[in-house]
């Protein structure tokens, strides 16, 4: 049985819930996403492939036989995810997602409402994409010898395209480092790493892990440094120079930082401005490339900048991309 899928089924309307529950029970293969679009068939993503689900719960490649989704279904899921309190989720809505209990992320699409040149909210929802959070214990074992160096933790970037398993790897790193007695602080802006719900950490993050739930990365990094004296800080999806600056501050404060970044390869990563900013300051010490969405959580390559050949290789990629 796929427990994460059963968790997600709580949010689904009575027309779709039994279908998803029957898939969760039969457990044909791990499902990465559920996609719901108004007047379109119920779709799932498994192994990086788009598939459709019939009313009987059968999985097919033909969209014409898929269970049709209505506007009411979308509204039901949205209101259930918001706990019937849209006002309490304004910040998440401005960012285009809601994190469900268990750390599953529900992406939203619809009509975007602007106010003062910035996104105010979203209305008239037309589609939802529920990404199922997976827990793969042990997926970061190969990385640990590189990360822990003479009882200190080296700073590290986890790089992969969307769906590559960055959050899953970060979660496993947090647990493994925490199990080894290091104080870990997770700054969980989207609530996906720890899957916190009403103060309870949803995933096993080990005995020495503190979580700043739904905290802005920049604020969280400073908060953790000031108040929690961590050995290492973990943040998901570094996206702006401001966040990169906060990481630099943490590292200059003597605390290793492990973060993830969206990019398909090293060349693309070096074209992103937060990564560029960090690399100019010789941060991070390690870069870990993960596979595509077909093999989430699989470590493809580790660039260790203390090794001359890796440093030279990245330097050449950097030069070519510049």
């Amino acid at each position, binding site marked *: 049985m796929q427990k994460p899928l059963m968790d997600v089924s709580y949010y689904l309307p009575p027309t779709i819930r039994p279908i998803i529950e029957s898939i969760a029970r039969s457990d044909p293969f791990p499902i990465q996403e559920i996609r719901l679009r108004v007047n379109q068939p119920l779709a799932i993503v498994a192994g990086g492939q788009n598939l459709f689900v019939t009313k009987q719960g059968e999985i097919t490649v033909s969209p014409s036989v898929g269970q049709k989704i209505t506007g009411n279904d979308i509204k039901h899921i949205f209101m259930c995810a*918001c706990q*019937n309190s849209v*006002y*309490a989720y304004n910040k998440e809505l401005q960012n285009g997602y809601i994190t469900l209990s268990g750390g599953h992320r529900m992406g939203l699409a619809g009509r975007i409402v602007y106010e003062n040149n910035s996104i105010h*909210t979203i209305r008239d929802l037309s589609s939802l994409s529920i990404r199922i959070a997976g827990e793969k214990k042990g997926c970061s074992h190969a990385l640990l010898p590189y990360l822990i160096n003479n009882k200190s933790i080296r700073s590290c970037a986890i790089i992969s395209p969307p769906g590559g398993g960055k959050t899953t790897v970060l979660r496993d790193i947090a647990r493994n480092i925490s199990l080894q007695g290091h104080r870990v602080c997770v700054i969980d802006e989207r609530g996906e790493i720890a899957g916190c719900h009403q103060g309870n950490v949803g995933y096993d993050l080990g005995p020495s892990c503190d979580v700043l739930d739904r905290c802005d990365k920049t604020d969280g990094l400073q908060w953790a440094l000031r108040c929690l004296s961590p050995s290492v800080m973990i943040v998901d999806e570094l996206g702006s120079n401001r966040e990169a600056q906060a990481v630099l501050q943490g590292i200059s404060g003597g605390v290793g930082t492990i973060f993830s970044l969206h990019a398909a390869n090293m060349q693309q990563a070096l074209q992103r401005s937060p990564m560029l900013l960090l690399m100019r300051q010789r941060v991070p010490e390690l870069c870990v490339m993960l596979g595509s969405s077909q093999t989430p959580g699989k470590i493809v390559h580790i660039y260790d900048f203390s090794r001359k050949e890796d440093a030279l290789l990245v330097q050449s990629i950097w030069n070519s991309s510049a």
Partner: protein
Amino acid sequence: MFKAFGILLLSTIPILLGLRKSRQLVQQREDIAGLLFLVNQCRQDIAYQQLPLAELISRLPRQRYKIVDCLIKHMQHEPTPLSAWNKTKQILTHQPSLSVMNDFFSALGTSDRDSQIKICNMIAARLEELRLALESEASTKAKLYRTVGILAGVFIAILLI
């Protein structure tokens, strides 16, 4: 013996009816006060704490207003505040406030914080109007119903004796 019992019974009926009607007016006044309290608490919690509605309602102080107690009780078993209200509203006898609160619960939780605060303000203003109208009605009519009931009872008793 039977005659005395019959006279007592017949004269008690109008007295009880008068008292019941008068009590109903007082209860309606109390219900509106409870609803106003509920709307104001919602506005305050939405503005400052942004708690989800289920949590917000469950945190309301109990044993102060019957209608709020009833809503808290139903909220424990119902999936949405609207469905909890649909069960709670059965005890509300004041029709104008019922329609105001139906509007309130169908709009509650469906929009952003600023809109919710505006809705709460509007509903509170409408309830306040109803409360003032009921206040003046209750102060005069409650006494009237009570007096008419007692007089009718006494009149029936005299007539039968």
